[in-house]
């Protein structure tokens, strides 16, 4: 009974192995979205700062990587050696010169400052690098795929997911076990008391933002290899990052990771239903989950 068997295995208009493939690719894409959200999650968790320029900073990372690969003629992944420290420096400088003035003032101040920053970054990129889309070629990873039991998986998504898991684990270890982590938890819980017991919060917050952008640098390079980018690509990155962070619950690191996975899977399953509607289903799942749990999946207990 071949026909009966076939119809039995059809779910969402595709057979079982396609479904599994979509799920796995959704999870891998979601891990990259989670990595987009990592930097945002850190600054929200420690400083309660909504960084509207986060998406544009991802794009800045992508442009730096593109310049480095072209100028030095190195592989995209090798460019990380330069992109990561440069992004750390940008984060440190931004926090010292601009953001420290507004952190902790109220909800709007950091949001509006980073909003202005976002417009500045987009237009500076347009001025310096033109409005054309760019991409970074790295065929030796972007074109390779494996075939595991009829399910094909690309090397690049696998690599992205691995880097994402690694960076989340690293951040988790830093927050949980190191002196910096204890400081960050202290500042997150009560900034003024943290200052009272001797934390130089201005410098400390600069290091936190530096770290957040260093993590973002990895997201930026992997994104640049995966998708062509342009100066105005930031807001969309910001939206996906935001969805991952908000879905997981503000200030919850692994919540952000899970949030990213959910958005990734929802987008690819949605794209199976209708090719143009991937992001639509991502947003829909986001809203539905948020309606059920308005504080996200794993909100930190209210103080």
């Amino acid at each position, binding site marked *: 009974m071949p026909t009966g068997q076939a119809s039995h295995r059809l779910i969402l208009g595709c057979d079982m192995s396609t479904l599994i493939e979509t799920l796995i690719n959704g999870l891998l894409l979601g891990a990259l979205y989670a990595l987009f959200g990592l930097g945002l999650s850190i600054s929200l968790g420690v400083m309660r700062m909504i960084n509207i320029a986060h998406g544009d900073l991802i794009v800045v990372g992508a442009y730096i990587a593109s310049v480095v690969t072209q100028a030095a003629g190195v592989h995209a992944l090798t460019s990380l050696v330069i992109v990561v420290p440069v992004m750390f420096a940008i984060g440190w400088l931004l926090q010292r010169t601009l953001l420290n003035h507004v952190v902790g003032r109220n*909800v709007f101040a950091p949001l509006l400052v980073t909003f202005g920053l976002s417009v500045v970054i987009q237009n500076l990129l347009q001025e310096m690098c033109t409005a054309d889309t760019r991409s970074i070629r790295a065929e030796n990873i972007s074109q390779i795929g494996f075939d595991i039991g009829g399910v094909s998986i690309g090397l690049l998504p696998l690599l992205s997911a691995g880097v994402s898991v690694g960076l989340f684990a690293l951040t988790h270890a830093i927050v949980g076990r190191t002196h910096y982590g204890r400081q960050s938890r202290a500042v997150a819980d009560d900034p003024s008391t943290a200052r009272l017991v001797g934390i130089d919060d201005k410098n400390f917050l600069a290091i936190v933002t530096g770290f957040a952008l260093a993590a973002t640098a990895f997201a930026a390079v992997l994104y640049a290899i995966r998708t062509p980018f342009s100066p105005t690509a930031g807001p969309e990155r910001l939206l996906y990052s935001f969805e991952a962070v908000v879905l997981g619950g503000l200030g919850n690191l692994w919540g952000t990771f899970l949030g990213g996975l959910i958005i990734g899977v929802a987008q690819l399953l949605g794209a199976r239903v209708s090719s143009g509607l991937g992001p639509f289903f991502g947003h829909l799942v986001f809203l539905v989950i948020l309606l059920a749990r308005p504080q996200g999946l794993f909100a930190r207990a209210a103080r």
Partner: protein
Amino acid sequence: MIDRAVATEGVTNASAMHDALKISRLVLSPAILAGLIMLPWFGDFGLQRLLVEAFTLFAIALAWNLLAGYGGLVAIGLHFFVGVGSYALFSISNVLHLNPWVALPLATACTAVTALISAWPMFRLSGAYFAVGTWVLAEITRIAVLNTGWLGAGAGMPLEMISSFDRWSRNANVYWAALAIGAGSLVLTVAMLRSRLGLALKSVRDSEVAALASGVPASRAKLALWVIAGSIAGTAGAVSYMSTLQVTPDASFSLSWTASAIFIVVLGGIGTVEGPIVGTFVYFALREAFAGFGSWYFIGLGSLAVAMMIGAPGGAWSLVQRFYPIDLFGIRRRMPTVIVHHNATGAS
């Protein structure tokens, strides 16, 4: 004693100023309004189009400022209402073969109902969740419209009924509609802020816990604010697309609407009514003077907003207030004279 004399003098000065402002409000506002109404007879189409843009953007900025500055509701997705309002106008006018100016109040009603319905999911969220939630709402609606055939999908749709008007009356009527939404939203805002609702909102903004404890119906006040701000933004969006004759999902549900509103409010002063007025002037003056510089204009605008938030978070209006502490619209509640006396004696 000296303190008391100073205080009394201060009070007399303040009430003299208050009276002067009241008189100038009564004389000046009708004069300005009359001048603006007559503009189509002596201004050219270019000026009219610029003012249409200025009035509609002013109304949207006022709506954003109402939500953020008075309700503590940061809506990154205010452009949701711009899109809904303009699509409501176009589809109502095209389907019912209605004169667009007759359809406009219906479009306003549509946005008000949409605001009421969207409040149910959105008001479950708060703070950053609300900010992002509204953005996602706008984005999901944009994609939905983009994939809806009878709304014209990606190409959008034209305003068919408007072609029956000649060029002069089309321009003039769009201009008057824009003036009506600009002036109307200002009057509505001032009236609202001077009413019980305004007092409730300000008390919630200053301390939600204290307001709730004194029996202020905080959530009902915020809901009313959301519906009013949404209707203002939606109507302004509808008028704005009346002048471009074609509505598309990517343009009408564009984040740039909210971005411009935020610029105006930040430049002018958040949480004041004068702020968006000053902000609109500054925004359009800068644009008319420097828009030729392309990206550099936006870089300058962005830097100005950043500098403003760090150096003068109250915006340009707070700088004016530092030297001339005036309350143009009589919104601020003044402490009764007796209490001022009391404080002065207590202090001396």
